[in-house]
């Protein structure tokens, strides 16, 4: 068929696809609509920006986490959760562990006490008026840590968590949400692209419908003209025949009327009068079945 109407499209198995125009081969660059060109430019810029980010990420990822990365000797960084252990509040445990093989468990303690005794005995650590400050100083430190250590740690931990969320956590979550929203929006835009062939198809169908309408118009006008011409011939014949009939009837009647002689006319009239008189007599009789007007 040369044109596809709406009903014919619907009856096809693949719906609206026009077989005359290959819409799938159309690209957006073939369309010279300026609005479409502008949207294409903006989308390409956006895609360029996104591709820059991904390119940079890929480059850095390939450098830091590529094939040459030695994860056995240089594993991923882990920060400790709690501080390393200390003995007597100030001496780290690793000093005691390092000396364990040489001096055993009590070695460092003996070193400390022996050292203090040595300093006092040789009077390197002179016992003067300020010496006594050492004992309450140590006591106060111990009591402070005992009473307020846990509370202070909890407060500091809470503060550090808040600072982390303010600087890293919340912005990161927000950025992740924005990125996901951007992905969704991009998917929507890409999905909208699938409607472009349909849009072009609709334009073609519009033109097809107009062509069909003009064709039908022309068909109807042709029919009307032909019908008019044929009707004329029919009416002409009818007029001629009716005229002939009328003329013949008039002619016959006038000839008959002219053939009536006066003697015949008079005889007919007398006949009529006598009939009428008889009828009147019968009409006046009671119980008669004569027609009463």
């Amino acid at each position, binding site marked *: 068929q040369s044109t596809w109407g709406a009903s014919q499209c619907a009856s096809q198995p693949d719906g609206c696809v026009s077989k005359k125009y290959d819409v799938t081969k159309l690209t957006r660059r073939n369309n010279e609509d300026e609005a479409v060109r502008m949207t294409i430019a903006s989308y390409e810029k956006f895609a360029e920006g996104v591709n820059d980010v991904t390119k940079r990420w890929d480059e850095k990822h390939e450098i*830091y986490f590529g094939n*040459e990365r030695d994860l056995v000797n240089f594993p991923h960084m882990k920060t400790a959760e709690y*501080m390393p252990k200390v003995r007597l509040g100030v001496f780290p445990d690793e000093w005691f562990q390092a000396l364990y093989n040489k001096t055993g468990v009590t070695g460092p303690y003996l070193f400390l006490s022996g050292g203090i005794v040595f300093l006092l005995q040789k009077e390197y650590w002179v016992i003067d008026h300020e010496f006594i400050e050492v004992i309450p100083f140590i006591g106060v430190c111990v009591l402070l840590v005992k009473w307020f250590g846990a509370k202070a740690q909890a407060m500091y931990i809470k503060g550090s968590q808040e600072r982390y969320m303010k600087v890293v956590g919340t912005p990161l979550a927000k950025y992740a949400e924005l990125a996901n929203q951007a992905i969704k929006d991009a998917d929507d835009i890409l999905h909208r692209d699938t409607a472009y062939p349909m849009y072009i198809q609709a334009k073609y169908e519009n033109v097809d419908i107009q062509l069909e309408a003009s064709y039908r118009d022309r068909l109807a006008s042709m029919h009307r003209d032909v019908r008019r011409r044929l009707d004329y011939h029919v009416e002409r014949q009818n007029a001629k025949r009716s005229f002939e009939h009328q003329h013949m009837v008039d002619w016959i009647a006038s000839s008959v009327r002219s053939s009536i002689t006066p003697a015949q006319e008079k005889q007919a009239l007398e006949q009529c009068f006598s009939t009428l008189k008889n009828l009147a007599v019968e009409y006046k009789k009671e119980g008669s079945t004569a027609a009463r007007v």
Partner: protein
Amino acid sequence: MSGDAPKSYNKFRVYQPYDAAYNARIHGPFIPWREYGQPRMSIWDMKIGNMWSHFLSSDKSPAHMRMVASKAYWRYCGSKLSRKTSFKPFMAMVFSASILLFLARYKDYAAERRVKYHW
């Protein structure tokens, strides 16, 4: 950072004062308290008798001294500090500060020993 560059420029090593043997491709992101290249000799493996001669023969240029100081600081940060902190660094600072200041004023304390009458 050396190694942290596109492939065409990898032959030009960028100046970084922390470690000459650091390569981003092998070692990953730079972590200051880690030793790249030769491992550091810990103080527990040194002998006290060799310490003075070792110090005399060491590199005393400003760049190397700066590197040693920064590495020591970062080593303390990386091994001794944590996410859930406590009073221990403060106590360590107080303890070490008191000892060092005592040693700095030792001259005045020592004089007290030689005095005839103690107050």
